[in-house]
């Protein structure tokens, strides 16, 4: 067994045991933060499936919001279990994503233009949620109708955070698994080719539109799933935290910070941004309003300028280079 495998197994075992480690009253808080890291890392990973191939979407909030709201509304109004409602929400989001992606691909909306179009789409979804206040609750948000018991499998509602800890751990692992499958397939090479030069890619038989729609559908589906999970855990959805520019940029920042070309980049970036914002919130509290956000923003800008392939990506690159140097020295 390679050292990398061993480390991964040890990490998994630690993660699986974590909820049972005594933490002197801090357990609820630690679990809460960790669950958020899992969910947002998963969403960041879903974003990076497109981002790494040059499809930089600034509108993933749209997919997140659609997923979260659709599942919540189906449960609140029709009593449809989120097991089914979640699937419907994911299917709906994929349909929506394809409607946006098809013209983008057909008319070759790329680069900055693609970013701007998706940015607008994310805002439109946020504004729609606010406008339809009769059933979405508008900008006040919407609370998930409570299940009759404290622990309901049918409603996916549990008072015990540990259930969500494991659920989000599994979902996070699912995201890593999908990323790895794609990364090892020839489809990655095709997407890489498309990201670089669509004309040349098409000339060697790659169906550009099909690939772009496929990767968009996959990314949107996983993002929507993240939205459903978020809604079930927080039991509250709000247009500003789940749709629009704010959350879309938050996803992008975290991934860019960690590194969008590596398996664990989105996770490292998300963990750092969440830890940083928690830390700054605790330090500054309510004393200097806006101070935490300012420092947070400043640090992000510095990281993005000085570590363009992300913290994790850069660190890994450095390690690799050292390893090849050693190898060539011993050869």
């Amino acid at each position, binding site marked *: 067994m390679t050292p990398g495998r061993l480390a991964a197994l040890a990490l998994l075992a630690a993660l699986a045991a974590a909820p049972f480690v005594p933490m002197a009253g801090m357990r609820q808080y630690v679990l809460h933060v960790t669950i958020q890291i899992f969910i947002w890392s998963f969403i960041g990973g879903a974003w990076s499936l497109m981002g790494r191939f040059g499809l930089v979407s600034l509108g993933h909030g749209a997919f997140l919001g659609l997923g979260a709201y659709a599942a919540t509304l189906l449960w609140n109004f029709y009593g449809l279990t989120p097991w089914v409602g979640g699937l419907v929400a994911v299917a709906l989001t994929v349909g929506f994503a394809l409607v946006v992606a098809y013209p983008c691909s057909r008319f070759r909306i790329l680069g900055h233009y693609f970013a701007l179009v998706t940015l607008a789409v994310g805002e439109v979804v946020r504004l729609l949620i606010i406008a339809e206040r009769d059933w979405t609750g508008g900008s006040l948000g919407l609370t998930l109708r409570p299940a009759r018991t404290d622990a309901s499998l049918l409603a996916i509602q549990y008072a015990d955070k540990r259930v969500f800890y494991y659920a989000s751990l599994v979902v996070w692992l699912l995201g890593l698994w999908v990323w790895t499958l794609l990364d090892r*397939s*020839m489809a990655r*090479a*095709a997407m*890489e*080719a498309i*990201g*670089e*030069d669509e*004309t*040349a*890619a*098409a*000339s*060697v*038989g*790659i*169906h*550009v539109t099909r690939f772009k729609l496929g990767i968009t559908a996959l990314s949107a589906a996983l993002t929507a799933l993240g939205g459903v999970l978020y809604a079930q855990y927080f039991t509250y959805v709000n247009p500003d935290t789940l749709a629009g520019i704010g959350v879309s940029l938050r996803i992008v920042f975290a991934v860019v910070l960690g590194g969008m070309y590596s398996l664990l980049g989105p996770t490292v970036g998300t963990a750092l941004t969440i830890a940083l914002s928690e830390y700054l919130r605790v330090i500054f509290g309510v004393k200097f309003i806006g101070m935490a956000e300012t420092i947070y923003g400043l640090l992000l800008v510095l990281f993005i300028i000085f570590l363009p392939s992300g913290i994790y990506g850069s660190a890994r690159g450095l390690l690799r280079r050292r390893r090849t140097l050693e190898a060539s020295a011993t050869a």
Partner: protein
Amino acid sequence: MLTVEGLTKRFGGFIALGGVSFEVREGEILGLIGPNGSGKTTAFNCISGALTPTAGTITFRGEDITRLTPDAVCHRGIARTFQIPRPFRKLPILENVAVAAHYGAARPTTEAEARQHAREVLTLVGLPTDPHASPALLGAGGLKKLELARALATHPRLLLADESLGGLDLAEMASAADMLRRVRGELGVTIVWVEHIMATLMRVVDRVVVLDHGEKIAEGKPLEVAEDPKVVEAYLGEKIVLA
């Protein structure tokens, strides 16, 4: 094998191709020549589906392919190279060719088969098959070879080679010409070869079509065409050397 009839392409008011007709016969190497801006690359773009012709029809092995998308044209068995090499720089050399072998073949291939085929094609053109070798290591000649390898990997019956041999020295030009001859010989691929430096091309091709300002001005055996006064004039008296 390929019939082009009345091929017309307008860019706004500018006529890049004004009703060009020619035929490519199975097994030949056809030279497509003409001065800068005469419409050679535009003709390739139309045939390969990268551009939609304004008018005219293109028939390949009995099928009208005029309005097919580039990937569909590729699956019919027509591959093209780009005048200015367009490698996928983020992919290793081997993957550049393997992705073409995998998605360009008309029948489904496994990834392992595609990589194997890519190695064979790379060996044929004389590029490294090492899975980590990057296109960044290649010079102008190497990038041309990669361009050719990527096109050949798609199992074409017809190769459209846009080879302005600019940037190559005499030895490289000769070996590029040699390469195309071998491609026809060993793989049985019919070739349309675009070039504007005529001397190299004339020695290799079976027939020549000459374009000037988007019109066909001559067609025939290299020797006859080289003597044609219209061709001589189009090239502004540039001497067409035949060894």
